[in-house]
């Protein structure tokens, strides 16, 4: 058996363009268990990255004992990555699991029963609603829950309480994907499909270290690369990653300069005539403005600003401009950097300019970072209205009110949805007094951690944390609710390429832990939320009720689920939305006809100005839209707000490692994954290491204007002048800065700043200083 910790992507199964990706079933079983011993295989999909690999959970004697990929699933054809193999069932069956609710008594968290815990929550909630109203409440959730859970929370927040203060940690990972799709095409919804990898002639990866973040998707590319007629590969990434090493052209640009490069690539398409004038005229607006914005971005100017070779810019543009079928994928290197939405829109623009959309091999994958991020965006547990409805469109709000049978005035459509960073700001100022955090860990994942810790410990904030482990965040809570994890509850979720999977309950949750859905429904019952006729607002008894309710909410919208059911999702493969009467087996690609959801009555957003985030508004939008045409949106480049200087001479960027997910709540608790990456590090170029007088393993002090870290050095693989730290590591397993421990969470140093349109924080660019740690090893 191959060691899949060392051999991350497994054995190659080469295939040619237009071929079927060969199957390969990956499996991991608990030591001592054979496949023949397994009582039952329960259908699910993996939740340890955004890829959404179909899988089955092995159950023996009421416990999860293994996992294998589903060969019939369109996403993975049987494969699983190291996190799925070693962190899925193992990651939720650790002895640290929360099994009873906790409440804070005399400053300490103590065990209690559900009635007491929920009673406290409901009492505080009612008291604040009476004294301060709905704007005193905030909800911050995840990219980890199931669709039914988000939808329940969306209804509670928007129709029960009526607060615009709802967001998910999807704000940190996928907000820009959604924002760029809305700006360019009028609504969220991934145009492309994973099968575009099978059909393409070129793949562009923008700020997307796919080899580590979506290992199974990368296997698909590796298999194309090892087959005949290989696609050409272009990688935009400051680091020398596995993707970069496989690329025909690697553009190792300075962090923070994505937009300059993108404007240069667009310009090359124009000046070389690599554009489809007919498509542009028939299906887009504003190409003239795009042309004028990019006009000054010659390859030479790009070279100067981005620190890449002008000839490489030309080569990359030529690959984009002349390949028959181009696939683009985009991730955090763009989304968490300066000009996030503008840069992601430029990727959309490249495809629009050539009409490279909606056909096999021609696609855009504005990636998600998490398995269920898409559902948060769809269901309204983040700021958006459910079903990709437009909060600035009164008809959409009325429609929702009809579906929920509530007064439209309850639905908070009068304000832009409050994004995560603003929710925390209101909590900091004391105007949000009730914050409910589910399945996420802002005490490690948000920028400028010392500030976040101060907010979480504020006396004025009643903090509810719902999780499977006592996370760094849960340690600050007033009430901690233990919930069921993956494999312990049933629900659906949707991956990057709109594939919906059903994940069935395989085993009982430990102790008194309950599913997140049950907890939300219990809260709604105890709060006595009612519809207009006095009936319960949420009358669901089980996840399937939620799914059926959700289907009604999506009818006629871009994310139409009406053709799906639990029954249809059992067996076979996951299915891609829109799935309805017209497309009973789903839809592989969007916009095949070049018809975009920009009609003013239908679109999800009237759009924003990319420089400021100012809303366009309905009047201006209606005056300029031509229904069905996509928008070219463009912005000129300006330098990032924090540039290296004398005091802080290095550019600091953060990211992921293949062996961990998020803040290690699961992956840090499984031995093979934790042993593979037990500690954080600072990646420094050989040149800078020599200048600093440090070598591999030496401890350094890294400081920014906001905090400091002490980390061992790893030499190599990054452009000189830039340094990198993985963001996964917090303090649940070591002493934290509050307890005199060594600061090691990458976000101690990051900046509180966000993109003006997507509101996604800028994690990828800060200025830092580095010095060798003095003297002896710290304890």
């Amino acid at each position, binding site marked *: 058996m191959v060691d899949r910790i060392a051999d991350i992507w497994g054995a190659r199964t080469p295939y040619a363009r237009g071929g079927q990706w060969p199957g390969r079933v990956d499996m991991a079983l608990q030591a001592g268990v054979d496949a023949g011993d397994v009582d039952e295989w329960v259908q699910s999909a993996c939740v340890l990255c955004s890829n959404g690999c179909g899988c089955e959970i092995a159950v023996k004697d009421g416990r999860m004992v293994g996992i294998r990929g589903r060969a019939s699933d369109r996403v993975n054809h049987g494969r699983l990555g190291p996190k799925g193999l070693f962190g899925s069932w193992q990651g939720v069956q650790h002895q640290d699991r929360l099994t009873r609710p906790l409440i804070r008594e005399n400053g300490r968290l103590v065990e209690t029963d559900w009635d007491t815990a929920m009673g406290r929550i409901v009492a505080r909630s009612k008291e604040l609603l009476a004294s301060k109203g709905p704007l*005193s409440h905030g909800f911050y959730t995840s990219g980890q829950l199931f669709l039914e859970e988000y939808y329940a929370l969306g209804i509670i927040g928007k129709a029960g309480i009526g607060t615009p203060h709802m967001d998910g940690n999807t704000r940190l990972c996928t907000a820009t994907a959604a924002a760029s799709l809305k700006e360019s095409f009028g609504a969220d919804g991934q145009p492309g499909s994973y099968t575009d990898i099978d059909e393409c002639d070129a793949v562009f990866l923008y700020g997307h270290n796919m080899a580590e973040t979506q290992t199974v998707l990368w296997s698909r590319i590796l298999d194309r690369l090892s087959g005949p007629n290989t696609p050409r590969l272009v990688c935009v990434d400051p680091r020398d990653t596995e993707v970069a090493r496989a690329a025909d052209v690697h553009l190792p640009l300075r962090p923070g300069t994505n937009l300059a490069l993108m404007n240069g690539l667009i310009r090359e398409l124009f000046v070389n005539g690599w554009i489809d004038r007919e498509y542009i005229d028939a299906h887009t607006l504003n190409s003239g403005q795009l042309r004028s914005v990019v006009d000054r971005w010659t390859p030479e100017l790009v070279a100067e600003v981005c620190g890449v070779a002008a000839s490489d810019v030309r080569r990359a543009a030529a690959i984009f401009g002349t390949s028959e079928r181009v696939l683009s994928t985009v991730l955090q290197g763009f989304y968490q950097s300066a000009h996030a939405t503008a840069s992601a829109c430029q990727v959309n623009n490249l495809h629009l300019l050539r009409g490279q959309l909606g056909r096999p091999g021609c696609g855009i994958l504005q990636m998600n970072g998490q398995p269920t991020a898409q559902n948060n965006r769809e269901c309204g547990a983040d700021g958006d209205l459910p079903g990709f409805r437009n909060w600035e469109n009164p008809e959409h709000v009325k429609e929702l009110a009809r579906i929920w049978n509530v007064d439209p005035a309850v639905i908070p459509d009068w304000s832009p949805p409050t994004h995560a960073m603003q929710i925390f700001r209101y909590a900091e*100022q004391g*105007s949000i007094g009730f914050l409910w955090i589910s399945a996420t860990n802002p005490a490690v994942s948000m920028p400028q951690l010392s500030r976040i810790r101060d907010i979480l410990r504020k006396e004025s904030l009643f903090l509810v944390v719902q999780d499977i482990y006592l996370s760094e965040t849960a340690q600050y809570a007033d009430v901690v609710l233990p919930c069921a994890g993956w494999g312990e509850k049933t629900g659906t979720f949707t991956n990057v390429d709109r594939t919906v999977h059903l994940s069935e309950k395989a085993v009982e949750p430990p102790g008194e832990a309950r599913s997140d859905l049950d907890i939300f429904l219990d809260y709604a019952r105890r709060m006595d939320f009612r519809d207009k006729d006095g009936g319960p607002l949420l009358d669901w008894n089980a996840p399937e009720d939620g799914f059926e309710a959700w289907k009604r909410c999506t009818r006629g919208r871009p994310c139409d689920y009406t053709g799906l059911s639990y029954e249809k999702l059992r067996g076979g493969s996951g299915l891609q939305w829109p799935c309805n009467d017209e497309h009973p087996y789903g839809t592989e690609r969007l916009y095949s006809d070049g018809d975009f959801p920009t009609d003013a009555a239908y679109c999800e957003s009237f759009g924003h100005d990319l420089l*400021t985030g100012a809303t366009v508004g309905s009047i201006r939008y209606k005056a300029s839209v031509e229904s069905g045409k996509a928008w070219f949106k463009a912005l000129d480049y300006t330098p990032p*707000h924090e540039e290296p200087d004398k005091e802080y001479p290095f550019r600091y960027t953060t990211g992921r490692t293949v062996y961990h997910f998020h803040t290690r709540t699961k992956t840090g608790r499984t031995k093979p994954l934790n042993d593979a990456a037990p500690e954080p590090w600072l990646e420094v170029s050989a040149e800078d290491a020599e200048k600093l007088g440090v070598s591999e393993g030496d401890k350094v002090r890294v400081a920014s204007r906001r905090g400091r870290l002490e980390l061992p050095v790893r030499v190599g693989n990054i452009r000189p002048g830039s340094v990198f730290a993985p963001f996964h590591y917090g303090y649940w397993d070591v002493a934290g800065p509050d307890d005199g421990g060594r600061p090691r969470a990458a976000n101690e140093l990051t900046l509180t700043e966000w993109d003006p349109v997507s509101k996604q924080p800028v994690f990828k660019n800060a200025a830092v200083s580095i010095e060798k740690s003095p003297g002896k090893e710290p304890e």
Partner: protein
Amino acid sequence: MKLPVYLGLLDEAEDTLAKSFRVVAHGHGEEPDVHFLLETLARQCDSHRQALRPVIERYGEETEGEEEHRLTANGIQEVRSGPLALLLDLQDLYVLVSHLDVTWMMVGQAAKGSRDGQLLDVVTRCEGDADLQLRWLRTRMKQAAPQALLVAE
């Protein structure tokens, strides 16, 4: 010929606005979006003044009577404090930008009337920014108003 007076007023108003943007940006550093964006908008004002310079040089600086013609005060000298501070400071900026917005409009009319291609080109390049500044201020105030007026203490 009173156009030079208005060019002077315009230049001064851009200067006042730039300074006010910077005062509010500096004073509301705890609101990073406001902070960084107002810095950007202040730079827009600087570039407008830069663009106006050759026109002003051509017409000559006629400052006589500017004091009495001036419509706005000295801009924002310092930020407020308290739960309404951000809202009120943004609203003050809104008044300053509105004033500038119509000033550009009137100067643009004069440029058209006098067929002054150079000035018209400057107006065309710059006047949209004031409109954008207003839209951003409206967007941000719309977001901040309910929280500040209903819940903040």
